[in-house]
């Protein structure tokens, strides 16, 4: 147990220089790009020179880039994410959006994993039967169709049928609804975006699981277990599954990192009030504090996800523990 703790500590310490490097690279790439955060103001004939100067000063644009970076890093280290170019607090902007994005991604991840794993196993067990082929056919569609395109198709479907709202998360009269009505309203809005993300990630996950199980089912120890006369269920769940699940745990780590950023494209098409739209606009306007906060968040989630999957691997796989 203690070894694991030391391992975790080591990993966390390793991330610090990594995060610093990520922040330096991203900061300079954004700042060196010829994008002017004041562009829109400058093109407005009724905005005076004095206002422009005041704005440039407020955003610190008149200082050299390395100084801007140091200022940013100093306040970031203190936990202050700064303000956006329009003067709103970055932390509160993110706080508004993170729950919405999490709601979407968690629902999707929960649904895909709880469907993909059993389906993958089933497909492997029923290998080369019509059932397996049918699943293969369906997942191929899921893999082939681009998410934004599928999202647009569903939006058009929503308009033509009138069964679903056209994007968004809540209806305009949401505030006057009762509790259950509210839940229904959100569910109603979530169905289409969840369908898109579910179909797309289900396909890959199900294929991965099927391949893993197939691989394992062919191995000597499974043959041996069968020869021992163990029931097929026991062979599958006790011997095959345990060995097949390792790559899935690694995948789970990546899924974790996509919790906040994985749905951006779909969010954009569905006008979902998540992080995706916010960050896209921030990048286009070179809203440095907001972009940096989201990039750092992404880097952090990726590192945390990997750490999480490594720990899970240690727990599930005695071989890794022994090598430790």
């Amino acid at each position, binding site marked *: 147990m203690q070894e694991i703790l030391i391992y975790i500590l080591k990993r966390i310490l390793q991330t610090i220089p990594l995060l610093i490097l990520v922040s330096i690279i991203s900061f300079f790439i954004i700042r060196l*790009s*010829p*994008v*002017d*955060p004041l*562009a*829109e*103001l*400058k*093109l*407005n*004939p*009724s*905005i*005076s*020179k*004095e*206002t*422009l100067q*005041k*704005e440039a000063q407020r955003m610190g644009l008149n200082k050299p880039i390395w100084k801007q970076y140091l200022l940013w890093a100093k306040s970031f280290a203190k936990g202050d994410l700064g303000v956006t170019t*329009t*003067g*709103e*607090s970055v932390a*509160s*902007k993110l706080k*508004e*959006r993170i729950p919405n994005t999490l709601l979407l991604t968690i629902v999707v991840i929960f649904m895909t994993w709880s469907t993909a794993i059993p389906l993958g196993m089933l497909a492997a067990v029923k290998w080369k039967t*019509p059932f397996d*082929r*049918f699943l293969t*056919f369906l997942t191929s569609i899921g893999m082939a169709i681009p998410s934004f395109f599928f999202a647009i198709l569903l*939006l*058009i479907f*929503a*308009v033509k049928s*009138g069964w679903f*709202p*056209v*994007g*968004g*998360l*809540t209806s*305009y009269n*949401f*505030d006057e609804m009762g509790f259950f009505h509210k839940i229904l309203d959100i569910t109603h809005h979530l169905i289409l975006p969840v369908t898109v993300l579910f179909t797309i990630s289900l396909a890959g996950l199900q294929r991965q699981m099927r391949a893993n199980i197939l691989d394992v089912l062919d191995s000597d120890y499974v043959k041996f277990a069968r020869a021992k006369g163990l029931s097929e269920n026991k062979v599958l769940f006790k011997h095959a599954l345990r060995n097949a699940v390792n790559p899935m745990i690694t995948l789970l780590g990546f899924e974790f990192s996509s919790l906040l950023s994985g749905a951006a494209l779909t969010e*954009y098409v569905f*006008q979902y*009030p*998540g992080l995706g*739209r*916010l960050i896209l*606009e921030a990048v*286009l*306007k*070179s809203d440095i504090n907001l972009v940096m906060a989201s990039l750092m968040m992404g880097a952090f989630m990726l590192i945390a996800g990997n750490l999480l999957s490594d720990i899970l691997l240690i727990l599930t796989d005695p071989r890794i523990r022994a090598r430790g």
Partner: protein
Amino acid sequence: MKRVIYISLILLVFLLFLKACIRKDVPEQETANNQNLNQKTEFEFPQKAKTVTINGTDYLQSQAPTGKFGGEVILSIFGEGPKTFNPFTSKDATSSQMAGMMFDGLFTTDAKTGEVIPKLAKKYELKGNDYYIYLRKGIQWSDGNPITADDVIFTWKNIIFAGLGNTSLRDSCIIDGKLPLITKIDDYTVKFSLPRPFAPFLRQLSAEVAPKHIFEPAVKQGAKYFDGFYSTTTPPEKFVTSGAFKLKEYKPAQRVVFVRNPNYYEINTKNEKLPYLNKVVYLIVGDANNEILKFEAKEIDVISLKGSNVARYKQKEPNADYKIYNIGPDTGTMFIVLNLNNRKNSEGKYYVQPEKQFWFKDKNFRYAIDYAIDRDNMVQNIANGLAEPLFTAESLNSIFLNKNIKGHKRDIDISREYLKQSGFSTNKNGKLIDKYGNNVEFDLYTNAGNIERESLGVMIKQDLEDLGMKINFKPIEFNTLVNKMVNTLDWDMILMGLTGSPLEPHNGKNVWNSYGSLHLFNQRLEKLSYDDRLDFEKQLDEIYDKASLETDFKARKALYDKYQQIIYDEKPIIYLYSPTRIIAVRKKLKNIYPSTLNGIMYNIEEIYLDK
């Protein structure tokens, strides 16, 4: 056998998917269809609202037909939603629009004539250089406090003239280096004393008035605090407003909801308090495609239509629940601008290559470009016939438009003639060369992602290549383009659009003043120690100064006519066309009087629902 069933099953599913893609061929709509739409929708505006005194309160009485109370209208706004609800710190159109829902100004613009008409103020008098503003007696803020001269004086003295928030309004009120003096005459009369006559001033009094009892504590906390005051995170119940509506809910990236202000000072002809609507909802939509989908799904009630959608909507109109209005030309202008800059940057390099400077500063060259551009073709093919060619710096709906500038058709022979006069010639390969033997080749930039401008760019490129010029058309990202345009100045020609004001040409002084922050065609980054203004720039500076002094409309118009003539004669900026604004409004909304000057929803307090 199993295999056959299995394959046919898959085929069946596949065919089902294919079926969805098949649709009957619909013949392409002709742009001719749009011709009948190209006429402005005609209707009678109601009489002007007047002031009525009931029990000592000076109400504003709307003369529009009376309607039913209740209901809500759902509108849309683009982008990421408002950045603030404070009208004094707002720097973007959406925020200003949202703040405008809640706060009224002393004056507003007449939708039909563009005159300055009273709103929060009862009337004004001009005595010498002093404006006497008379306020309504007995009207209240949404929290029941009276609206008095103190609020007006506080707003102008302690917020606007103190330089809090967006200082653009203050900067445009500086007359000969001085700000107007504000004096309180009594609780309902305020005097603004100007150092000299200044015509745009009255319209500037349309700026929102702030409730002193709410804003004063915030102002005392300093400029930084004020920037975050009445922001998007302020709880809605804290808003104290003078407008027809007040904030009820703001959900980021989703919607802004306003409810009626029960203390609003406008009444209908039955003396009932307006507004009619209980709620106004603005849905925040990311882009035009989403807006169209939302309109089709009946989630929003009003939409501005563009391009091919217009014909489609017009065709469906007879059986649909919406009515289409043509409200005339847009207030924006679309143009190409040439870089006449002949200075060097801080590293001693020319912003524009010397041989190009020679072309651009040559008036004949600019004339050749102007005559080579086929505006009619642009109107037909890019704007689907829903636009008019534009030749003036003022937009077509401006009350100061110089109607004597008639423009011209494309004429490539005239173009060639102008080029010949300046010693340009074409070589064997049909390429244009100047008199020193340089190939005429330059860059045309516009912002990427704007389909209209990208197609315009291609057309301009083709039009100019007919003269043998070589144009490198480069759409680049918007922010990058603006950076080039106003900071690094390393560009030859840019295709751009600017929003204009149909009422006040003086708002364009940042563009036309030789030292303006948006003096596109000859941007000076700082004051120079020497005067290198071109002759026509000097003339423009003079006209702009003079016109702001002139309070008589006719005399002012004569000056602004002259400025438009100078731009047309000198062509530093070549205007292309002005799109026509087409909107669809649900028929259930009544008292809709869209105006080319004020837009659609300016009379939101008079609009009611009739199902």
